[in-house]
């Protein structure tokens, strides 16, 4: 089915405002809802947060008061959408449970994007990053069992395996080695632009989440782990945001943001198993179509260009939350020992990497290793969910 969002009209902007009753959404069941429903909620929250933050940055760089007012008007709706989406998360979930869902998002979203990405350089960036969030999931799952006596499989439900990826202490690279080369906005596939924006937004939300919830923990080991992984999410945002061509104008970027929101709400509407949540995706899609229309008007007027030149003529294949177990196992077997040097990837630990490692990990173990030691002391084993057999690499003795 072809769907060209540029040609569709949605709900008129002046009819998008919701009252308190409409914003008071019923949360999903913390234990019995589809894990991928929670993943879609977390993803769309990240997308809406980016919509809000981008619009604020745009407004701060904008001279034209009329444009500022238009941005404010749409942004208020984005802010309501963010509330309606994120408030679907249940209040009884612990922060650690939500965290585990965040890493499940990072794993299955990034793996899917890596599979679908047409550009080999961009594909490599996603393949590289996903092995790190995969290991974060493993570390947080072990912390979860220590603190709450619960198993992460009750959250990820066998859809995503929980086992070592690239060892977390090795994610601490020199910041200059986190900057990649951008795609070329004139030549790249429009799908690549959507991928970069999506993964960047998800990682940015993860970074913001960890930096804010980390200190709400009382347990010293939990506080430390959130610091460590929070800093790695900072690296991930740097990594993914640098893929975006900085030559795109503000108007063009606004169009991409709104187009991407249409793409994702449409995708999630197509696959949503929860009827009530599906209705929210559908409602928001119909709002975004009008945001896109507004952004296109602005681009035509202020950029003198036709938005159809920079976006796809129809929505790409739906972005899907589904298991990526075999794909991840192949990546673990092939790419576990990669690190970055400049804008590329190498297998040897180079001097700048070693120096950074020494500065951070040289005086006692990283919190992510301390978690594993403590877990080992408590349970005499580590916690894993391996539904597809033995671990594909033997590089798992890192913390021994």
């Amino acid at each position, binding site marked *: 089915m072809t769907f060209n969002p540029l040609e569709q009209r949605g709900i008129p902007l002046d009819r998008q405002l919701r009252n308190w009753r409409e914003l008071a959404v019923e949360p999903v069941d913390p234990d019995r809802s589809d894990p991928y429903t929670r993943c879609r909620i977390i993803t769309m929250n990240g997308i809406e947060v980016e919509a809000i933050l981008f619009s604020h940055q745009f407004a701060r760089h904008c001279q034209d008061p009329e444009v500022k007012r238009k941005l404010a008007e749409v942004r208020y709706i984005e802010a309501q959408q963010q509330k309606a989406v994120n408030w679907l998360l249940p*209040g009884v979930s*612990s922060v650690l449970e939500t965290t585990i869902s965040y890493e499940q998002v990072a794993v299955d979203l990034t793996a899917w994007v890596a599979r679908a990405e047409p550009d080999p350089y961009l594909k490599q960036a996603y393949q590289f990053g996903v092995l790190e969030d995969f290991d974060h999931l493993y570390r947080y799952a072990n912390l979860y069992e220590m603190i*709450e006596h*619960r198993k992460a499989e*009750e959250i990820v439900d066998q859809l995503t395996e929980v086992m070592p990826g690239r060892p977390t202490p090795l994610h601490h690279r020199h910041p200059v080695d986190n900057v990649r080369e951008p795609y070329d906005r004139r030549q790249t596939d429009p799908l690549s632009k959507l991928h970069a924006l999506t993964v960047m937004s998800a990682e940015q939300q993860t970074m913001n989440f960890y930096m804010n919830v980390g200190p709400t923990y*009382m347990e010293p080991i939990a506080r430390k782990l959130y610091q460590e992984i929070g800093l790695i999410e900072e690296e991930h945002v740097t990594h993914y945001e640098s893929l975006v061509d900085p030559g795109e104008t503000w108007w063009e970027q606004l169009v991409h943001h709104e187009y991407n929101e249409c793409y994702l709400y449409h995708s999630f509407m197509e696959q949503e198993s929860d009827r009530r949540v599906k209705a929210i995706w559908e409602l928001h899609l119909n709002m975004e179509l009008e945001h896109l229309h507004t952004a296109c008007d602005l681009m035509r007027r202020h950029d003198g260009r036709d938005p159809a030149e920079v976006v796809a003529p129809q929505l790409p294949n739906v972005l899907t939350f589904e298991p990526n177990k075999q794909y991840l196992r192949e990546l673990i077997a092939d790419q576990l020992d990669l690190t970055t040097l400049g804008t590329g990837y190498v297998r040897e630990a180079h001097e700048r990497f070693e120096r950074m490692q020494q500065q951070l990990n040289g005086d006692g173990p990283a919190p992510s290793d301390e978690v594993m*030691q403590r877990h080992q002391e*408590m349970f005499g084993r580590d916690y894993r969910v391996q539904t597809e057999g033995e671990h594909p690499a033997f590089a798992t003795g890192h913390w021994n």
Partner: protein
Amino acid sequence: MTSTAQTPDAADQDDVVALLMRQHGDIRNLFDEVERTTGDDRRDAFRRLVRLLAVHETAEQEVVHPFARQLFDGGQGVVADRLAEEKHAKQALAQLDAMDPDSPGFLPGLRHLRTDVMEHARAEERYEFAQLRRRADPERLAALAKAVKAAEATAPTHPHPAVQGAAANMAAGPFAALMDRTKDAVRKAMGKDG
């Protein structure tokens, strides 16, 4: 390496909050087990759930709530809310206890209770336990942990399947007896160590 590494036993004894939070996890695990089994396995899992709930809530009522009540401003109100939730859950549990675990009404009732118990446990963690860690000195927290452990030791590890009976009977039946027994053990431990 920091100096905080401990054996599990030492960690539990040092920190009543960590101990109770892990029991909250164990309670949820047992709810899962009851839901996922049938027949005798479900009956057995449900007995263990009843036992753990009895021990856990009694220990809180005898040890933790009285201490928290006078520990901080507003402690009275926080504890009163928790006690009301516990009373409500106790009644729901007694009703379930009087049912055949394979009867059609059992699972919906169990799911309902599960939600109530989870909300209650999170409220304890956020509004009551956080204050304990913030204000109580380590020796006191260790003494409380010891009393909770004493409660845990009272209940038999593998109780007999419940004898079916009238609902009125069951309300004062095995569950209440278990709570009484736990209460005695906790009081004894508190008298000795508290």
